[in-house]
């Protein structure tokens, strides 16, 4: 970007500041995807997607079932590696580093880019162990006291501490659905990730639990890059600042959430979000 001499004036610098907050193009993205294709065998599930993910914004992926949004989300931390027929081409970078490079430690990558799934999936272990497991295997804690601090900090950030502090030894699976999901978020947070991917994190939850997760997402924004796949248009509108609409494996439109939901540029986006699709 070429800066004009006018940047000295307070108005210009204010305009520049708001650009930094508002513009997709300014600032360094946390993750950068370029010309990404994902194949399942011969079938191309994702076709030439370019997108930047920023820590400052929650990014929502929306689109009809089968549009490829979850497939693309899973490409961001190489979860598709677990599917033998899946193949990814193009580049996906985390802080400028190609995550599909041969030297990339996938376990390390998934700690840096954590994931929360549709159905809460706590380990069948105590609440404490659910959180402590990650820091332990990644060697983040030197002793039990360190670990205690990490467990409390993660549970606090996930807004669960007050509800479980007196029963850390209870099984994680004994919690309610919404609590289990927050436990999973706390588990992802425990290894100090840079990005958290959420694949329909609220679709199995009641409205109150959903509201708590949405509140949590808002609190975590800025600290972590957050990408959320959701089928709820209202949820995408509420929690995200950037929205990407996928259709038939293509990224149709990516922009400010407020624009996408009040005045989308693409006809296909408009038809989908207004319920005229198909």
């Amino acid at each position, binding site marked *: 970007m070429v800066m004009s001499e006018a940047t000295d004036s307070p108005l210009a610098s204010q305009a520049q500041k708001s650009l930094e907050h508002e513009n997709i193009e300014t600032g360094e993205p946390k993750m950068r995807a370029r010309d990404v294709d994902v194949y399942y065998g011969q079938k191309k599930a994702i076709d030439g997607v370019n997108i930047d993910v920023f820590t400052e914004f929650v990014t929502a992926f929306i689109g009809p079932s089968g549009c490829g949004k979850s497939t693309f989300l899973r490409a961001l931390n190489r979860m598709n590696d677990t599917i033998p027929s899946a193949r990814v081409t193009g580049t996906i970078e985390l802080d400028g580093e190609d995550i599909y490079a041969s030297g990339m430690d996938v376990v390390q990558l998934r700690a840096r880019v954590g994931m929360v799934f549709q159905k809460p999936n706590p380990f069948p272990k105590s609440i404490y162990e659910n959180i402590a497991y990650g820091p332990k295997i990644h060697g983040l804690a030197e002793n039990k006291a360190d670990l205690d601090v990490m467990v409390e900090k993660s549970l606090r950030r996930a807004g669960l501490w007050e509800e479980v502090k007196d029963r850390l030894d209870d099984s994680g699976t004994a919690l309610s659905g919404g609590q289990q999901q927050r436990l999973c978020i706390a588990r992802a947070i425990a290894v100090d990730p840079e990005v958290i991917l959420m694949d329909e994190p609220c679709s199995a939850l009641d409205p109150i639990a959903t509201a708590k997760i949405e509140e949590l997402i808002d609190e975590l924004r800025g600290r972590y890059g957050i990408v959320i796949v959701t089928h709820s248009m209202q949820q995408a509108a509420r929690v995200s600042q950037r929205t990407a609409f996928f259709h038939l494996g293509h990224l149709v439109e990516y922009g400010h959430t407020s624009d996408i939901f*009040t005045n989308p540029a693409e006809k296909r986006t*408009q038809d989908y979000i*207004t319920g*005229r699709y*198909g």
Partner: protein
Amino acid sequence: MVEHTVKAFDEDITRLRGLIAEMGGLAEVAIQQSLQALVQGDEELASEVVKRDAKLDALETEVDAMAVRILALRAPMADDLREIVAALKIGGVVERIGDYAKNIAKRVGRIEGRSKFEPLTLLPAMGEVAAEMVHDVLTAYAARDPVMAREVIERDDKVDAFYDSIFRNLVSHMVENPATISSAAQLLFIARNLERIGDHATNVAEMVHYSATGAYPDDIER
């Protein structure tokens, strides 16, 4: 326009648009008849206009209820959202236009010596332009036509020019014939009401533009 997957949503929107169109029709007739009553000194017609305004008020309430219902039940997005928000605002503005017409009708019986006033020939011409603006802006609304909406906005200058001319005319008339001040003041208020109707039609046009395109006409002073 492609239909919604949920058919009832389309029915709701069609109903809402129908209500707005009905309001527009009533407002337009109210303007025309209030001026007709004024020119002919027809107090009976004037009181009919006044009475019929209640219907416009009732329709506005219905538009409000319908729009709120759609917002609550359908959580509309994009053009749908803009359409509902615009309908909510347009309903209020058209009701206000009806109030101005009613106010004109109320003044009909308070004018004495009507043959003495030159503006009595100018006012119907001014009213015609204002009523046409109301008519055309609702046509633009029905057709979701931003170009036509813009054209209505531009026509407001004509109404303003009429107002200035009538204003000057009446002021000099009052200076020359102090005995007629009370009647002249009534006519001044009527001209003012028509001028306001033009402004409100302009507001509606801006909302039609917004609903159709997602933006207010940016090159026109709001």
